[in-house]
């Protein structure tokens, strides 16, 4: 899954030629074998490296603070979201939903790598949610819909339908 993501990311960043990856361990941690220097290991490290290569450093954040926030959500993606047991998914959705209440993107008002990788990471969860559940996580759904329509980001992933009008106005749950 991580390899598909990296391939999509390369395309989004406008790479002409795809890199070659391998994986290691049970978690299938990606490895980037480059011709210069030691191999790079780990999704976040490789993704950040690709962004650098593509000369789009603003995707890593524009200020020191923003960079720190971006790194934090990248780490969140890898440590909290990936391999999250079923029973914890709801609390993760809740956290993200609450966090995104007053934000357009994860790092505030700028689109960053954190949005891309978190979008990839939650896609399978969002795809499984019922219309009502998506509505319960309104802020998250709004963000998600925004990112999947961001030019060039969706790539290999199917579109998840997010309704903009509310269906469950009376919802007692």
């Amino acid at each position, binding site marked *: 899954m991580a390899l598909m993501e990296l391939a999509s990311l390369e395309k989004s960043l406008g790479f002409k030629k795809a890199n070659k990856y391998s994986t290691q361990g049970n978690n299938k941690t990606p490895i980037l074998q480059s011709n210069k220097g030691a191999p790079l290991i780990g999704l976040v490290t490789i993704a950040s490296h690709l962004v*650098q290569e593509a000369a789009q*450093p*603003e995707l*890593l954040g*524009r*200020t*020191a*603070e923003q*960079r*720190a*926030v971006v*790194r*934090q959500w990248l*780490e*969140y993606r890898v*440590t909290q979201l990936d*391999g*999250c*047991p079923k029973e*914890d998914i*709801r*609390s993760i959705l*809740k*956290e993200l*939903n*609450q*966090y995104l*209440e007053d934000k357009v993107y994860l790092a*505030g008002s700028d689109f960053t790598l954190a949005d891309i990788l978190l979008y990839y990471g939650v896609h399978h969860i969002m795809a499984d949610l*019922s219309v*009502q559940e998506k509505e319960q996580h*309104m*802020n998250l759904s709004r963000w998600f819909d925004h990112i999947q329509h961001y030019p060039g980001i969706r790539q290999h992933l199917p579109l998840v339908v997010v309704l903009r009008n509310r269906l*469950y*106005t*009376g*919802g*007692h*749950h």
Partner: protein
Amino acid sequence: MSEMKLFVSDGNPHCLKVLAVAELTGVKCDICHAKRLVPFLSHPVRPVLLLPCGQHLFKANPICLYFLEVSGRDVCDLTSQWLEWEAAELQEATVVDIVLWAALYPLLSNSSFLPDKLQCVARWFEQVNALPVCQTVAQRVQQQKSLESLKRFLQKQPLPPARCRNAPLCNRAEEEDAEREMTDEEIQAAGATWSRGLADRPTPAERRHPILPQEGKRNVLITSALPYVNNVPHLGNIIGCVLSADVFARYGRLRGWNALFVCGTDEYGTATENKAREEGLSPQEICDKYHAVHASIYKWFQIDFDHFGRTTTEKQTEIAQDIFWRLYDRGFLIPDTVDQLHCENCQRFLADRFVEGICPNCRYPEARGDQCDKCGRLINAVELKDPQCKVCKRTPVVRSSAHLFLDLPKLESQLEQWLEQSMSTGNWTSNARHITRSWLRDGLKPRCITRDLRWGTPVPHPDFSGKVFYVWFDAPIGYLSITASYTDEWEKWWKNPEKVELYNFMAKDNVPFHSVVFPCSLLGAQDNYTLVSNLIATEYLNYEDTKFSKSRGVGVFGDMAKDTDIPSDVWRFYLLYLRPEGQDSAFSWADMALKNNSELLNNLGNFINRAGMFASKFFEGRVPQMELQQEDKRLLAQVGFELRQYIQLLDRVRIRDALKCILNISRHGNQYIQVNEPWKKIKGGDEDRLRAGTVTGVSVNVACLLSAMLRPYMPAVSATIREQLCAPANCADAMFQGAGSFVCTLPAGHRIGTISPLFQKLEAEQIESLKRRFGGQQDEELRTDYKHAACSTSRSRSWWLTLVLLFQGDRVRALKAQKAEKTLITAEVAKLLQLKKQLAAAEGKNPEPSPQKGKKK
């Protein structure tokens, strides 16, 4: 930079990282130990850095990197700065070292942890550890309290989920099925044990009440969670509490422990008051009525309480008030005022979900008492504009009232100390440990112990007159008061922690009250109370293929089980066979029939019946002469092994697993008979006849052992077998001594009684009709919509049904308003009526006369 705040907590190794890097880079920030929550996270985390812009950083490594980045570097050219920063390899390396050092600190600071092979790691650790920055911050996190503080922090953390999931779960099943090869020594030893016989063991003494702790005996006090009086107990309640505790109590008595098993009905609270108003009775009359219902159900299930009491007694008032005053005098109770919505019409304070109104933030007109669906913001119910009681639609008023709170934070460290000791020496199921640790990790808050109600134990303090204790404070004290109603010398059990082992049985939703809240009350009261040393919590029992059905009123209730014509013992067997140990399990009629027919009838019953029938048909009802050969001794060894397993498992309260040992023994027995064919050999020569005799004699003795092992699980069947075999009264006692030994209890010449079948086949039609009678017409949609909202306690079932009912009502009204198709509306109305019926059943009311449902109370 001065506005930056870094929040750390004692003993948290992650804080080491950031403190160390802050020290290294010289970044200045205020370091606070205060409690502060990241607003959007569901769990408190440390360290947290509050950035000048107001954002929270809640991950240690990004904080470390952030410190590095802002430590006086030129930040004008972003790209070059990033590259420069990356290029600073020396610093990079230092950060990696420090982060690793911090993560390994709790483990490696004790040098004995490292095996000699890892010398390089040890050398590296010493080097980094010797850095002055590391020394400084290590001291700051530990606050001079040594490594103990780290240990306490780590113990509070639940196990990482990944490890739980990957843990080998199913190996046991394979082991169970695999034929265990017996060695020659084992086989010879089994033969020797067998021939010891019963010797002259004294007959075990009759149980004499009152049972009190005895010197030199294992004194075991067993409680099962008190069922709420307002509801008829469900199969899930029965297996989770009373039945599990009963099996363990019976087992304990067999083992010769001095065991006392108490339980009773929990009777105070709003639900009882409401019920009384509905039925036009006094709360006491309601309690009397339902207490009797409970008692009769448990009697039918053969729950052998030493005492089944209730919480509405003088003793309860006396003991609860005593604990209250002790807590009050020691400063563990803090007063505070609470604003609550009160419906004058319904005459009660409204729970959040029973209020609706206009959202104070976005003016959405249908905001609930806890959250607005439109803007998603959390709401305090009293802030709603134009609030409405959802039951009667009238306007509630805000009432402020003074209450007392138990100061849990003040008791936290005492609690932790005790928990560490109790968990390391006692039996705590892993869900009980996990839930308790999560509670501690999230930090304890003061909890309100008083309520503005009438039906409860009165608060004795004059400033709080007219109030009663909140049930969670009051109900567990019921264990003490019920014991006090049983014997005046109750304190010998409850204020005797050195001599008494306390076992609490419950479903997992009750764990925090037994592991955190109640122990805090008792610790704070400082009266040498006996605290729980073994906390046994089950997961949930589901009904058929439906999740969380307990709360929906579908399924089988205690009072209906006896109307199924299936014997109580078979119910007990099946519930225990699928006791939710370690994971949820599901009750299924088809599976029940299958287990009855395959395990009870064809395996267990068949073996015992054949053994007895051979003896009575071929040997005139006497146990024949036996001359053991290798093959017989091998069976003895296999049976002895299963018996020891059974005892080991039950000692650790693995009730379901131990039941499998019984079934394994009869499987071995059936095989043994099948291979040796005594019914053919009996017709042969002298040698063959002797062989038939030996096989029959050994089999009858195995049957006798089975009767003893079945006693905790199926008491009536066990007694029937004993009666049929005329087994001596002391046989169980003899075989359950120590690690367990299978001895010959029915020697040659022993006369047995009349043998008859123990079990009956459950026919497919019978099961189908039961299935139809008890559910299965559930609405698929509601099932998925509400599975998350479902809760397991019977107390919340009617509350939950009320909610579903409200929702379904809205749905019907909406359809009618939209002029939807008639068939659709009819279907939804049918669901609505079904729900009403369930609610009535859940509240024990007589529903509208209905054609298909027969028995209801």
